[in-house]
């Protein structure tokens, strides 16, 4: 599975690099450089996120997670998870690491889905750091407002579908 994904991703990279090189060497160099820089800047975040999430999952008291976010917590658990997601700071790794940690420590899957959906859609720091500087602020607030019900819908649909 991992190998297949790696092959797929690198095929896409190869294709894009080829198209870029057809348009000129400068474009190829610029793309490779920008991608490599991004990667280097991300390394410490990913390292801390991955290694940290293992320890956080292990340190979290299971008996505390289960009643609040466990499979039995139902809609109330989804509400708590949604709030937690909106308030979680951090880059691409943080929300997933915390969600995975909660799942390992006994949280219910729909609750974890609500958490990571809320975190991905309207974590407050992300709106302020990324979206507002790059887009008209009113569009950002519009997007955040219409996203409010989505974590609940995601959790509800996940419950309807049932775990594969």
């Amino acid at each position, binding site marked *: 599975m991992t190998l297949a994904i790696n092959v797929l*991703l690198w095929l896409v990279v190869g294709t894009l690099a080829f*198209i870029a090189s057809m348009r000129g060497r400068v474009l190829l160099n610029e793309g490779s450089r920008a991608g*490599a820089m991004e990667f*280097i800047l991300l390394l410490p975040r990913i390292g801390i996120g991955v290694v940290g999430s293992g320890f956080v999952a292990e340190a979290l008291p299971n008996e505390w997670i289960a009643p609040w976010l466990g499979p039995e917590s139902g809609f109330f658990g989804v509400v708590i998870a949604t709030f937690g997601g909106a308030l979680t700071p*951090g880059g691409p790794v943080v929300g997933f690491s915390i969600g995975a940690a909660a799942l390992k420590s006994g949280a219910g899957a729909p609750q974890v889905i609500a958490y*990571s959906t809320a975190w991905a859609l309207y974590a407050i720091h992300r709106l302020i750091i990324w979206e507002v500087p790059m887009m008209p602020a009113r*569009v950002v607030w519009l997007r955040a407002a219409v996203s409010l019900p989505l974590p609940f819908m995601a959790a509800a649909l996940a419950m309807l579908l049932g775990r*594969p």
Partner: protein
Amino acid sequence: MPRLPLPPLRARTARFIVLIKPVPPRRRRRAFDWSTATIAVLAFAAAVTVYVRDGREHFLTILFGDLALFAEMLPKVLAGCLIGAFVTLLLPRELVARWVGHESGFAGLLIAAFFGFLLPGGPITIYPVAGAFLVMGADAGAVVAFIVSWTLIGYTRALVWELPFFGADFVIWRIVAALPLPIVAGLLARAAVRAGFEYREGAQ
């Protein structure tokens, strides 16, 4: 459906400016920031807790397990970064704007959501592209569908970030549950605009 009038001259000038400046400004980023620092403190506290409570051997088992996971992620992350960088350079933006503009209707929402699914890269890629869509005449609903789709069902994001943490079954399940949501968000945004929400500030 009646044809909408041509966009005002200002909008057309804005479009011209975007066309001659195709690469969005890149924000400078540091390798370490306060949110990473918060997580680092949290991780350190958790590691100490595990060491003290469960002993050295258990601590090392977890540490090596996580380091192996980290090593496994690296090639995917590098690929994701390169894809994002090349797409930012190669994407024919003016074409995209035509497909998801004001007159695009429901199909425009579908196309925008599909682009969100397709376009790889991080926030540094997505928000400048979304901002450019707006300037070039995409409507708020399409832009919302695009961003929500990238956030929830974008494949590079899922492959690179989510999969190593959650495993394939869980990720596929979550994505299937999320499939209708970009369209829902886009429709809600259009409803808000129709109800009088003004999203183009002043000269925008």
